[in-house]
């Protein structure tokens, strides 16, 4: 067990940010922490790192209790914050060297690790640049390099791809998977479902400071009622057609708007053939047809609800 969180409670006045939160992180996994705004993801990370006081609970990392002065534990942790946390007055190389130096006192070893980190995030051409001269994506990469240069066994990434262009995002995600392949255990928080779906081996969904779902992608998708979503491009659907479609067995929801007919079926139901038969019989012309299995986004929305969060 790399991380063990038991009954963690954190209050801000009357607001309960973490409500008896419990979960474990196993060695070698990439754990995704998902949740709407204010669900307690960042608070949980800060409590795990002993940055924040908490009211109740127990946190153990590498089997030992985590405290602010647990330097032997901290030595093997790398953190990539939600916001870029580097020194504007130091160059790319100097920033990575400074933060790496807080973990690795030996100069020669540190030099090698800094070079590896620069290679890893692809900042070779920018090593003498000051952070203010870097684009958002490059800054994020620098932020990551500062957090992982010392080769930690456990890496916590708190929304590292916010405001990053698709190319940089892809680069970052591939990098995280590479770190995992090299042996690091990863805890990854994000709003982006497709990212979590792409890289995480296990996912925990938090809401209002509680774990409301915990499992692999497949396990989470099995938790919801939605089985299949069929989308048809057509412009000739009339109300009586919709009524007929709703009578197809297993078709839980049939909607038509903006030239798109959407038929949602319950779990273990495959209605693609039935829908196509109906269109042919009724001689309704159609364009493209999509059949999709539920995504993590569907899971997230079904579990956490669709009401807007701050």
């Amino acid at each position, binding site marked *: 067990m790399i991380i063990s969180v038991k009954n963690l409670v954190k209050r801000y006045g009357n607001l309960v940010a973490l409500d008896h939160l419990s979960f474990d992180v196993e060695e070698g996994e990439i754990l995704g922490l998902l949740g709407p705004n204010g669900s307690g993801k960042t608070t949980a990370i800060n409590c795990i790192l002993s940055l*924040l*006081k908490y009211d109740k609970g127990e946190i153990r990392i590498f089997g030992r209790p985590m405290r*602010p002065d647990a330097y032997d534990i901290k030595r093997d942790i790398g953190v990539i914050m939600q916001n870029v946390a580097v020194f504007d007055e130091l160059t790319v190389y*100097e920033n990575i060297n400074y*933060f790496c130096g*807080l973990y690795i*006192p030996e100069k020669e070893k540190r030099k090698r690790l800094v070079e590896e980190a620069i290679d890893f995030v692809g900042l070779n051409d920018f090593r003498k640049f000051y952070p203010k001269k870097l684009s958002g994506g490059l800054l994020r990469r620098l932020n990551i390099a500062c957090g992982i240069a010392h080769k930690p066994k456990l890496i916590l990434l708190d929304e590292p791809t916010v405001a990053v262009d698709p190319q940089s995002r892809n680069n970052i995600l591939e990098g995280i998977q590479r770190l995992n392949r090299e042996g690091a255990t990863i805890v990854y928080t994000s709003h982006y479902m497709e990212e979590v779906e792409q890289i995480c081996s296990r996912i925990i969904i938090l809401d209002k400071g509680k774990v409301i779902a915990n499992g692999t992608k497949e396990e989470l998708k099995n938790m919801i009622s939605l089985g299949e979503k069929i989308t048809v491009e057509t412009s000739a659907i009339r109300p009586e057609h919709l009524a007929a479609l709703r009578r197809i067995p297993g078709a839980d929801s049939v909607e038509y708007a903006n030239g798109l007919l959407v038929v949602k079926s319950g779990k273990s139901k495959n209605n693609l053939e039935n829908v196509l038969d109906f269109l042919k019989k009724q001689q309704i012309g159609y364009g493209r047809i999509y059949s999709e299995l539920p995504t993590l986004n569907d899971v997230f929305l079904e579990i956490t609800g669709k009401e807007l969060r701050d």
Partner: protein
Amino acid sequence: MFFHIFTNRLKCLLRDRMMIFWTLLFPILLAVFFNMSLRNIANSETFRPVPAAVVNDAGYQKNAGFRSALKSVSEGKDKIFSLTETTRKNAEKLLEDGKIAGYLTVGDKIKIVVNRSDFDQSIIKSFVDSYLQTSSAAESILKANPPARSGLSAGLSGETDYLKAVSGGSADPDPSLNYFYSLIAMACLYGGFWGMKEVMDIQANQSRRAARVNLAPVRKLKTFLSGMAASLAIAFAEMLVLLAFLRFALNLDFGPKAGLVIFTSFVGSVVGLSFGAFLSSLVKAGENMKVGILISGTMFCSFLSGMMYQDMKYIVEKNAPVLGYLNPVNLLTDSFYCLYYYDTYGRYLLNIGLLGAFVLLFCAGTYFVIRREKYASL
């Protein structure tokens, strides 16, 4: 580890142009402005000999006493008149051209010819009045007591002072120095910017970088002290640059105790640094608020020390002396002045002792706040 943090902090701090401006260039600019304005005041207060003429005719030649008296005040370093002996016609022309303030004619009576009444003309008149009074007194004494002639000359030519001025030290009193000394003290307190930055870069609830530093396996106190050592090195180096600029570029006199002046600047740098750190740890508001409090607090203390209005220092000393002892800028200003003016060290040591107490207070307060290792919120 100490060296790693120290060198990187040095780089960070030295590349912060805004901080360098406030802590080094701003005091130097103020010193230049002070020097320009104080030099103008000094020039306006310097006594210039009054240009005057005397008609060199038979009457003047005949009155040896007046001639001697006039020549005695028109010669030497401290002369009152810049005297021209000339003809009446030329004297009139010089007066008309404004080249002299007035001219004298010596006959039965001594007459002053001027074309306006001003400060210079009053000096000429005062001299003539004084001469006439003295010569009249001498004539009266000689009439009454002819044997007194021998001691009369010395008795009339000199004036007896019944008060004796005793200097507190070897240096000449120079009130204008107080402006510069309070400026140096202000610059010391501006070292608080460095202390402020150190605390902001170590407190996880004050900056993101600090949060990252807090996650490293390094004792917080070690990180803090390494950073403070770098800050002190820069703050003290800046003070040395400022002192060198004042001494060699502006010719400011620090008196003979250069070593102690440098030591006092070092103490001032420590006071400034610890003050900034204490302020930063105490005030939870953002950086701009902290900077605002530091600048306004330091400027107010400098004002009370006489940086903007010299007499303020004496007003405080007279009406609220405790305030003077509670004001680190005033204690530093006074320390510099003590070193310049006094031969004894009692007052200087009292100031240094009080400054030491301030450092202890600020350091203890800062430690008390930053030693907390977890935060209620970030």
